[in-house]
Every structure is written in C-alpha cells, then in structure tokens.
C-alpha cells in the first residue's frame, strides 16, 4: 500500500509520541492486530488501538477508512478475522451487542435509536427492567445520572418532543445505565448545533473525570483538538498514526489524515498541452442538496481535451452533487457545455451525447446485483440496436457483446449469466468501466473509481482511464485518495462547502496544501497553492 506501513506508528514532525496517559495498571481497552476482511476489501488491517481509563481517544479517518468496521467489532456486531481484544488486561471475545454491554462497552449511535412515542424513561427501561411499572423504577436512576454528569434529561419527556442533542443525551444515559466503562460515540456531533456540541463536550469531560474511557469518532479536526487527549488515525483500514492532541494542530492532523506516501509515483506521463481546447465548460453552477441546503455555490471550471481533472474534498462538500449534475441526475442552475454544445437532458440522453459515469456507489447505482453480468453490461443501451430490434431484446447479441467485454476487461466471473452480486468489488468495477467506456465517451465522470479495490484492480482502472485521455476524452476524477489524485491528474481542484477552489496545476500542489484546502483554509495562506490559477475558484 504505497509504503504506508513504514509510517506506523507515525512520528509526526518531531513530536514525541507520549502514550503514558495513566500508567497505573493495564489500559481499559486494548485492540491488537485486528484484521477484518470483506470480499474484495480489507476493512481493518492489523489495527492496534489502546484506550486508558479517564481518557478520550479520537478515532479519525475519512469515509471508508475502517472506523465503522472497527466499532462494529468492538460492539460485537462483527467478529474479527484476526487479532485480540483485551478489557482491563483480560482477553475477551465479544460475540454480540448484548455481550458488549455486559462487558461494559456502550455505544452512542450516530442517529439515536429510540421509540419516539414513548417517554425517555420508558425507552431506557426497554430491555433492561422487567416486572410492573419498569419506567417508574428507572426514572430515579436517570435523575441521579443526569445530576452527576450534567446530562439534563427529563425522564418524563416524550422522545418525539426532544431535540437531536437531547436524544443523544438519552442514548448516553442508556449506555451509562448499562454500566459502560468504555463509551463509543459515533460521529456524535454530526447532528448537533455548535452550542449543543459544546454541551456534549462538557459531559464528555465529566465522564472522563469519572474515570471512564471514551472513543470519539469524528472527522472535524477542531472538535478532536477540543475534546480528545489522543488521536488515532485510520486510513484504508490501517492505523497510520497516533499522537497526543497536546501540541497537535489542525494542520498536523490534516496531514496525518490524508497520509503521506514515501514512494509516491506519478502514473501520468504527459497530459495535454495548454493548446488543447476546452472540452467541458462549466459556468456558475449552483444546486441544492438533499435537505434544501446549497450543495453547489457558483462552480465554474473548464476541462480540456485529453485532460484528467482531479477533484479533492472531504465527503459532503458538493463533489457528489457536481458529478450528479453533470450526469443529468440532479437539477442545477448555470450552464454546462460539452464540445461547445449545451449539455442537457436526462441521464440516458447525456450518456448518448458522450458522458460516461462511473458512480460513487457501484452496488446500489452502478449495477443491478440480482441481474446477470450480460444484463448489467446492457444497462446503457438495451433499448437500441444491436442489443434490441424494435421492442424485443436480442439476447444473442447481448451475450456476444458480454463475452467480448468480459474478455477485454478481464472480468473474473464464472460466466456471463452469473448475477453480479457474486462478483468481487474489483470485478464489478471492471464491468462498469467496460459498459461505460464501450461507446467512446467524450467525458468520463469517475467517482472514487478505485475505492475498496485491491492493488491489481486499482492499477487496471487507472490504466484504462489514462488510455482514454489519449483519444481525447476528458476525465473528471473525484477521489478522497490524494495519492490517486496526484498520480493521475493534470490539474487538481478542491471542493469546500460547495465551492470549487482551483483547479491548480498538479505540479504546484502538495498533499499538505490540498489537505489544508480541504479543511477550509484560505488558498493564499498556503505555500504551493498561491500561484494557482485561482480566478476560476470562488473565494468568498
């Protein structure tokens, strides 16, 4: 994995890693060598992690870094393939969430799981207290816990009347009622206002002072610095670093999170010259996100013929919406032209005008898992010759083409009539590439094209994409993997809060400068990024 192993445990820029938080006795929780594999992906790769009593450990990492898997293992939802878990020095096996709770591990889920028509006390009594009037008996305990940790929970309140922050406090109380010594908070601030988050941090400090251990999952660097004692960073399933927050800065954490590669090699040789004409021209694109909030704010850029334009950004900053707008899946204002022609119409029409789309979610939108390889390869043009004659599909032609594509792209499958749900992630991705690139597209929208793939498949996907630029196709590459962006792109742009910064020529950016831009820093304060052609970006 590009030399990342050499970084573990990462000594970051001269800080000494000091792990003696509370040296008395064994750590409250120790994971050693936890490995969990899913078909085609190693979700956790020999993960070591330690939390002491009275300590807040932040678990930092991008989407897909393996945080969720690790939590699921801790809470008994998954069994690790390798590795050991120790609680207060004792080796334990966590077979189920019920067992996790008995062992003193509590989870505060990201989205509260409460019965909204019931009162707080009734929810907390659920599954814990038997007999008559269980809610009444639990109410006393709730008040006591509330007073002790400043949790402010009214046991008589109906859950449907509570704010997200209050519901979260109910979940914390639930974990504490179960006697949790180790408390896992899964992205707890994602549903909170800044004020509510501040309140949560006060509670966390009280719990910590009481000697409990907290694992705090987040990718907001400020919060991590505010509340955690120590940070463990996961990247692609591996622990790539662990530092105390004392002395750490946003910049150093961002750098750890995006990682540093030792044998960083650039796969892209030339790239188009400046004389290459514009292929895709995007002007002042604005769009609304799922909750009616602005997802794109006046995005403008140009993509040249034969160019790979990389788009970096932390998930949820508008990259998905940008691609969906271009693919015809999301409404937007502004203008988009491809080859000097206005790009309009629905997804099918845009595919026909030369827009290929390698989607973010290859299982839920890229393929129909219950349908066969041959059928999935026909998804884009099953209605047109040669795959159809009038209203009838031509099954012979469909199968023939499927055999050809499977062969050409090296899709490992038992046969062309195998349902794609039986294929590995890499082979599903090859199938999508085969389908999307079959019609000689002009513009290729590739979103996390190698996410979760092994090295061989990653390499093949990269080669296929680069090959197409030789024929004049442009690639818009959205990725959270900076290595990938830097090794393939000719220019890189960064999306933050729906605005596009850049694009900057790849020679003028570094992982560090990109990491800072992704975190919301101003481009002019960053060396390396300030010479970039920023007139296209929106610098509010």
């Amino acid at each position, binding site marked *: 994995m590009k030399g990342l192993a050499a970084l573990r445990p990462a000594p970051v820029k001269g800080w000494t890693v000091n792990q003696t938080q509370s040296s008395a006795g064994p750590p409250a929780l120790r994971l050693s060598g936890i490995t969990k594999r899913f078909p085609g992906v190693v979700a956790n790769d020999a993960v070591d992690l330690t939390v002491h009593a009275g300590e807040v450990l932040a678990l930092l990492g991008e989407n897909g870094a393996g945080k969720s898997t690790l939590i699921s293992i801790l809470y008994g939802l998954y069994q690790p393939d390798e590795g050991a878990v120790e609680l207060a020095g004792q080796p334990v096996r966590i077979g189920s969430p019920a067992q996790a709770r008995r062992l003193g591990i509590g989870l505060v889920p990201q989205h509260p799981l409460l019965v909204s028509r019931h009162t707080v006390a009734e929810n907390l009594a659920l599954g814990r207290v038997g007999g008559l009037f269980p809610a009444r008996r639990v109410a006393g305990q709730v008040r006591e816990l509330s007073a002790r940790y400043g949790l402010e929970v009214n046991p008589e309140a109906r859950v449907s009347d509570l704010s997200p922050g209050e519901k979260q406090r109910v979940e914390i109380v639930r974990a504490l009622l179960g006697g949790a010594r180790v408390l896992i908070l899964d992205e707890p601030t994602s549903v909170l206002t800044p004020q509510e988050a501040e309140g949560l941090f006060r509670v966390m400090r009280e719990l910590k002072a009481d000697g409990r251990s907290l694992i705090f999952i987040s990718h907001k660097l400020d919060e991590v610095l505010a509340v955690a004692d120590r940070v463990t960073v996961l990247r692609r399933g591996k622990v790539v670093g662990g530092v105390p927050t004392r002395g750490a800065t946003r910049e150093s954490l961002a750098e750890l999170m995006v990682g540093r590669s030792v044998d960083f090699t650039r796969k892209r040789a030339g790239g188009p010259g400046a004389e290459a004409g514009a292929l895709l021209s995007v002007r002042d694109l604005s769009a609304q996100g799922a909750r009616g909030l602005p997802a794109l704010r006046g995005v403008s850029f140009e993509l040249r013929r034969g160019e790979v334009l990389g788009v970096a950004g932390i998930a949820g900053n508008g990259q998905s919406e940008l691609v969906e707008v271009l693919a015809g899946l999301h409404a937007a204002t502004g203008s988009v032209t491809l080859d000097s022609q206005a790009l309009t119409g629905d997804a*099918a029409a845009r*595919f026909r005008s030369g827009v290929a789309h390698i989607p973010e979610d290859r299982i839920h*939108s890229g393929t129909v898992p219950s349908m066969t390889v041959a059928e999935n390869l026909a998804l884009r043009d099953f209605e047109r010759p040669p795959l159809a004659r009038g209203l009838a599909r031509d099954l012979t032609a469909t199968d023939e083409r499927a055999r050809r594509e499977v062969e050409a792209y090296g899709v490992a499958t038992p046969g062309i009539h195998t349902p794609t749900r039986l294929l590995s992630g890499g082979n599903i991705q090859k199938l999508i590439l085969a389908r999307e690139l079959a019609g000689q597209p002009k513009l290729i929208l590739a979103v996390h094209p190698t996410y979760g793939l092994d090295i061989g498949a990653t390499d093949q996907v990269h080669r296929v994409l680069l090959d197409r630029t030789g024929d004049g196709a442009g690639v818009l590459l959205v990725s959270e993997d900076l290595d990938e962006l830097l090794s393939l792109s000719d220019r890189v742009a960064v999306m933050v809060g729906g605005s596009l910064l850049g694009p900057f020529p790849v020679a003028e950016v570094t992982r560090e400068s990109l990491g800072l831009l992704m975190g919301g820093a101003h481009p002019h304060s960053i060396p390396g990024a300030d010479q970039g052609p920023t007139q296209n970006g929106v610098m509010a």
Partner: protein
Amino acid sequence: MTAPSAARTALVTVASVVVALLICALVFVFAGQSPAEVYGTMLRGTLGDPTGLAEVGRRTIPLLLIGTGLALAFRAQFFNIGAEGQLLLGAVFAAGTALFLPVPGALLIPAVFVAGFVGGGLWALVAAALRRVNVNEILSTLMLNYIAVALVTYLIAGPWKGKDVRGYIYTDNFPQGAWLPTFSGTQVHWPTLLLGVALALGLQWLLTRSTFGYALRVVGENPGAAHYAGLSSTRVATLVALLTGGLAGLAGAGEVAGIHHRLLEASQISLGYGFTAVIVAWLARGNPALCLITAPLMGVILAGGDLLKIDLNLPFRVVDIFSGVILLCLIASEVFVRHRVQWGRA
C-alpha cells in the same frame, strides 16, 4: 449469501405448500374430521370428477388472468392488492358495453373484453397516479377495492337496475351476443381461458425478452440503478399498473359475460379472486408463465373448499383458512430461499 437457484426456489416453494397442507390437516383434526378424508374428498371431487374439473376450470380462469398480471407487478415492486376492485371495474365497464353500447354483433365480445381491460386498467392507474405524490400503492389499491364495491352496488341498485328484476338488485341480462361461449354443460368460458393462457405466455416473453421487461426488472430490483441509467420509474409503474389492472379487468369481464350474463352484487361476481391471485403470483415467484401451474392449484383449493362445506359440513371459512395458511407459509419460506439453515453456533 448465495444466489437462490431456480431448483432451490422450487424446492422451498413446494415444501412450503406441503407444510401449509400439514398445518391445515391439524385444523381439520380440531374440527373433528380426519385429514385423510378431507383431502381425499377434495381430490376426488375436483380432479377425479368431470363436474369437479369444470368447477376447477371456472375458478382457474380469473385466478390465471389476475395472477399473471400480479406476477408482473410484483417484479416491478408495484404492490397491487387491489385486483379485486380492478376486477369489479372491469365487470362494470364490460356490463356497460354489453348493455348500452350499440356495438355490431360480431364485435360485441371483443368490445366487452377491451372495455373490461380499460376499466380495470384505469382503476389501477388511479393508484399509480397517487404513487407519484408518495401515496403507498398497497394502501391506495386496497382502499379502491371498497370504492369499487360501493360503485357496483350503486349502479345495480340505481341507474343500471334492471327493468324486470322486481325487488332484486342486478341489471337486466346482457344481449345473447355478449354471452361468452362455454364448454358444453360447464361454466368454463373458454375464450377467457384462452386469453389467460396467451397472456401468461405473452407477459413471460415481455418480462424476459422485451426492452420494457428489462426496464421493469431494473426498476423493480434496483431503483438506484434505474435512476442512474435514466430509466423512468414512473413510466414503468404506469405501464405496469395498466397491465396488472387491465388483466384483472379482463377477469371481471369474463365473469360477467361468461357466467352471470349481468352485473350483480360484488360478492357474487368475485369469490375473492383478487386476493387469492396474490398467492397465485407469489407461488409463481414472479413468473407469469408459472401461473399456468399455480392458478389451477389454487383453483383446486377453492373448488375443493366448496365441496368441504357441502359434503363434510365444514364451515364456509375453510377456504380462507387454506389460503391464509398457504400465504403465511410462503412468506415465511422467503428466508429459506435466501439463507441456509445451520444448526449449532457458527
């Protein structure tokens, strides 16, 4: 999780029917009857007897038509529970055509069928339209059943009430030209049966070999992929509603034009065919052509159940018990189609 193979699905389906029959046997024991005698009576009186066979055939016709349409609808994840109402609307349109439209003789029967298809189809389209504003089609189709029953009652007691029926509430007889021919001495109206067989095969072709069937399966099996590829889920849902409703409407047309020759009370037009056909479609696992097997099977159970009332004096609800237990077993068996049972702890 492995892919459910066709053989495994078939095995589980057959096994769930056997389990249902065993559970029903237990019910018969509690009702004071020997299961052997009950099942013996059912088989002898249906398959082993020409009159019984005709009774099975009569019930198979609407079950086949409706089940075929439902199988298609379920594949598109359009959960039509309102075939009963669509059947009634088909009957209403067919009756209106037969009674009041000046159609030349030779075209009358085709016109009655077309009217039935349109009536049932339009009724299902109401649900499809409501779905566009996020009304669940399970609820809307179910509710539309009650409206259909009320509409039929209103018509036969009000504007369409026959001139020479005195106190009864039904319409006059259809003109002879609108009566469907039957196999002699039976109520098996063969044109409708023929239509059912042709449509079961036709829809199977549509589902597996046509471009529309492909789009339908993508929409049903992964709406996300349909959206991604620019396939219109609304268009698919609309066409599927028209087909599934239309086929139920054809069944309604067949019942009034082939058996009753007039529009009469809803409970007499349909013996719950719209609901029993859900089992037909489920047993066929979404394959219209397989309804050619499952519709007669449920036909045997419906006809056999009627025999049990007469011959063994069992309560008339016995058929409902059969249907209910079979449906429960089928739904419960879903888990065995997808998962293997492993004894002991993994």
